[in-house]
């Protein structure tokens, strides 16, 4: 009897030790990964062995150049530019506060904020492929294309500092993106700078990949460490600097391109205005109905994809995704390239904010990276847009917006 129990104790001890060893397996060092989907798309499948080798060298060199420019997650660098002040866009102090491992000092000032709060979803490289990402819908944003949805600037222009602050502080309702309102002001600023750093890093990488593809001869390195003298190096150095300057410049200019929001006309949310908005919504100019559907339940055009999924393939990402998976790239968007759904406008939940000005900006400027278009420059006046805002805001109040009625409707359609 005692013997038996002792035996059990031994089994127990063995199990404990095994479990603890399993727990103790060390995690890899944090580093920035190159965007392998983009690389593969750009360079395609190498045809011969030599080609594969020279490509590998080029990519390795690219990786080194990237580390030279931006450092690594534990020691980030900010590339220095001679004719552009980078500090408003990339503040070294703030970036360092968000980078590296998690810690805090006696005054409670945090360190490693990005890894503490963001990386488990957005990934260390900002690729939106953190460990939890596959389980979230929508997927966490991949910063590397430098596209952000909810902002006060037109399509194609970067978000401002305050736009990113707003998303971090308010969070995004009905998604896994939480509100960080409990963080200190400078902590949020630090995260904004770090997100921008990751975005710029990603965009510069994409540009350099394109440069290698278009400007360099097969097998040529961007910056050959053994060859510091000749003209080619000078030329390539200019290419690299040019890429960085373009991207940083775009971010620096965002603040000057904020869309001006005209104050709404009198009676903008009157019954008449709502009716006008309704007509516009269904009309052929705005044509919101095309995507958002007859009942604005977001069931009009449902087969489209957002730009992050379209990266896999414009038309049929689902059938191309396995190719990338076969290369060993594990990203949630490859595991399940979900189509984008136009928003159901009857829930009253708007991801970019539900204030009239938020809706004005969404409708006026569209939503970056998604099929949601900007209002056509001609054909819709500012007052028209305010009327549409009024109509969109009135939708959740209509009887059909109650869930039972919607279920009924869906059943009928099925």
């Amino acid at each position, binding site marked *: 009897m005692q013997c038996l129990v002792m035996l059990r104790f031994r089994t127990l001890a063995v*199990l404990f030790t095994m479990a603890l060893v399993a727990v103790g397996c060390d995690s890899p*060092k944090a580093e920035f990964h190159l965007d392998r989907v983009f690389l593969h798309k750009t360079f395609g499948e190498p045809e011969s062995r030599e080609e594969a080798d020279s490509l590998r060298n080029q990519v390795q060199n690219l990786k080194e150049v990237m580390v030279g420019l931006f450092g690594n997650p534990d020691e980030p660098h900010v590339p220095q530019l001679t004719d552009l002040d980078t500090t408003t866009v990339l503040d070294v102090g703030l970036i360092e506060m968000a980078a590296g491992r998690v810690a805090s000092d006696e005054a409670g000032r945090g360190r490693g904020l990005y890894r503490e709060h963001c990386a488990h979803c957005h990934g260390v490289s900002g690729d939106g492929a953190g460990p939890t990402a*596959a*389980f979230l819908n929508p997927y966490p944003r991949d910063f590397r294309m430098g596209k952000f949805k909810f902002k006060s600037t037109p399509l194609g222009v970067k978000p401002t500092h305050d736009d990113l602050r707003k998303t971090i502080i308010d969070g995004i309702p009905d998604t896994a993106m939480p509100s960080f309102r409990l963080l200190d002001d400078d902590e949020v600023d630090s995260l904004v700078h770090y997100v921008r750093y990751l975005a710029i890093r990603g965009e510069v990488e994409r540009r350099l990949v394109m440069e290698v593809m278009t400007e360099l001869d097969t097998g040529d390195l961007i910056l050959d460490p053994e060859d510091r003298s000749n003209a080619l190096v000078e030329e390539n150095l200019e290419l690299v600097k040019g890429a960085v300057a373009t991207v940083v410049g775009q971010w620096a200019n965002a603040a000057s391109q904020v869309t001006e929001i005209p104050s709404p006309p009198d009676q903008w949310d009157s019954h008449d205005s709502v009716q006008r908005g309704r007509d516009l919504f269904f009309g052929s100019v705005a044509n919101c109905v095309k995507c958002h559907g007859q009942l604005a339940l977001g069931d009009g055009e449902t087969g489209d994809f957002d730009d992050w999924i379209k990266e896999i393939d414009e038309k049929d990402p689902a059938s191309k995704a396995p190719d990338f998976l076969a290369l060993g790239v594990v990203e*949630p968007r490859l595991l399940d390239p979900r189509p984008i759904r136009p928003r159901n406008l009857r*829930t009253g939940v708007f991801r970019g904010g539900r204030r009239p000005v938020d809706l004005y900006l969404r409708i006026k400027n569209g939503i970056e990276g998604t099929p949601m278009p900007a209002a056509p420059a001609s054909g819709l006046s500012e007052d028209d847009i305010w009327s549409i805002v009024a109509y969109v805001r009135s939708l959740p109040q209509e009887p059909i917006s109650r869930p039972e009625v919607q279920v009924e409707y869906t059943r009928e359609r099925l």
Partner: protein
Amino acid sequence: MNSTIHCESPWPHRFALVLVCVTFPLIWVGGLVTTYDAGMAVPDWPSTYGYNLFLYPWTTWFAGPWDLFIEHGHRLLGALTGLITIALVIVVWRNEPRRWVQWLTVMALVIVISQGLLGGARVIQDARQLAKIHGCLGPAFFALATAISVVTSSFWKQGPQLEIIGNTRSLYRVALFTAVLAYLQLIFGANLRHIPVTADVGQFRVALFFHLAGAAALALHVTILIWMVFRLTQPVKALRRPVSLLALLIVMQITLGVASWIVKYLMPISAEGRLREGGFVIEADGLLQALTVTAHMAGGSLILALSTMLALRAVRLAPSGTESSASFFCTSSRLTELTT
């Protein structure tokens, strides 16, 4: 009954109980340290910002930031637990004749010391992997403290009061296995929680799978245990109570587990669309998140301790009577008098 060893002193049990009662809050606070990512709020060890652990000015401690408050508090509670363990070792060695019980307390002391060192190493080397081991050894210590308090209890010394007919032997086997499972499940949970940010989605998926499978297995085992306990011919309160409480805890724990996911990531994607969401915004590091997740973690330790207790009691009730079992079970003359 010449071979009977007498264990008269109530003190070992009392000290063991105190140890259990101090360890549970220690585990809570430890969980909070992880929840708030406060593990590095004090960068040095064993000193706190240069001060001796016990001499760190309490005004600075109370008035300081929350991170520092819980990390230093965790250290103080840990030190207290260590001191109580030392006391327990002394009391047991002086009053308890059973060798193996004496060595159990030594084992507890070794664990508590390693636990302190691990915690320290985690700070000095800033290694999250060590944090995970530290977090897994804590509940093991809690279970050990519970075990010591069970084997020194009067229940243990008294033995079965009535003849129990039923399959007690397979009962204790299942109970022991449940305790092991509870511990493994705890480790799976820690694995999920401490998943490194450098892990990829595949690794997270595996960690999640194990934790969910563990939950299912544990729930199944507890159901079987309930069935076995309530099927015994005699209503054995000493088993019925813990097993019922265990079942209750499992239900709570599963609820808390689902809640932990929801307060962090919103609806699991399998439930999306079917449950209407109402424009809910998660608050990062808010009270709701911290309490839910820490309660889930503490619940795991409680389940482990309770299943350990149940297993040991089942061991005690299993048929015995051989010579060698005397030193194992021990009796108290006071109790024997009472019962004969």
